[in-house]
């Protein structure tokens, strides 16, 4: 499936970095990926450029295959996706 602009969002590792999740552990252990991307000294290398005034994206074409794989489960449900 594709958008009208023929682009899909780049997969992101959505973790904000630099935060110690567990007290007592070394800070160097816990560096989130999105935090690393957002730091000034490490420019973001994925995703589209920041939106600018007047930007118009081109129309897309074609369909992209799913980037996620599902299987028939082999155990009872652990959780439920539901509306909130």
């Amino acid at each position, binding site marked *: 499936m594709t958008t009208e602009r023929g682009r899909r969002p780049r997969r992101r590792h959505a973790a904000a970095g630099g935060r110690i999740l567990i007290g007592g552990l070394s800070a160097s252990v816990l560096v*989130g990926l999105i935090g690393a991307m957002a730091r000034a000294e490490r420019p973001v290398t994925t*995703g589209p450029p920041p939106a600018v005034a007047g930007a118009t994206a081109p129309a897309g074409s074609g369909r992209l295959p799913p980037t996620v794989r599902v299987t028939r*489960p082999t155990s009872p449900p652990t959780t439920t996706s539901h509306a909130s």
Partner: protein
Amino acid sequence: MRRDATFPAMGGEAHVIVTGGDHRLLDGARRRVVDLEERWSRFLDDSELSRLNRSPGRAVVVSPETFALVEHAVEGWDATAGRYDPTVLPALRAAGYDRDLALVTGTPAVTGPAPRRPGHQLVAPGCGLIRLDRRRRAVTLPAGVELDPGGIAKGLAADIVTGELAAAGAPGSMVNIGGDLRVRGEPPEGDSWSIAVEHPLRRDRPLLTLGLDDGGVATSNRLRRRWIQDGRPRHHLIDPRSGHPAVSDLVAVTVVAADAWWAEVATKSVFVAGAPASRADVSGVLVATVDAAGTVEMSPELARIAA
């Protein structure tokens, strides 16, 4: 070993599972979900997002998490051709969703009409003029633009927290916030994480149950979060093109994607577009839809495992 925590968060209930790893990981994850809500909630006056929304025209330096939220929201707006639009906040307030509404099942909660500002534009202005300064980690919202995190925050929080758990050594984790969830790594049992998807019209069985190794699942429907305004039924899924609750035959949309934030954004896009799963035009995801007549459609990959 599996450890679970369940607690209120982001207007619903959060459920976190950590399989293996240090026993302190679970409590850290819970605190992190709460931390993200405190940064992003539009119902908290001192949240980063609320302060950003009150600062039109000014470059506001925000935390990495909040910058990521805005950046992903703009990306989602762009990738869905504006069908997902985080700038619907004024329209949401005008429709009556100006406070933390209680969930309803059955009889809608009744609220009075929300006051409208003179000359208020309901059509969402879009993200085209939002400026993101990555070097300074600053966001500038133009006048008239306010962001609603409601269509992306739960999924993004689930992505962030499971990512941090993985970085901290958790062999596997699941974060489900209000039904929008992300799984990573080793499940507590079986070959993959087993996830049921709620059927919007039936309580006796799920719409489907799927196995997922790594990815996100999000579900939106117009039946749960609804109310009455000026004698008319309203729901929270705003069509950015009109500024009013979307008119659609669809009652529920579920999306499975590589990331939970994209799954959540895509549910809004599919719902606003109004087309069933067979004609859903969103990139790289699996879709299941249910319409008002109870007709279910699914992407072929979902239909195969649901059969």
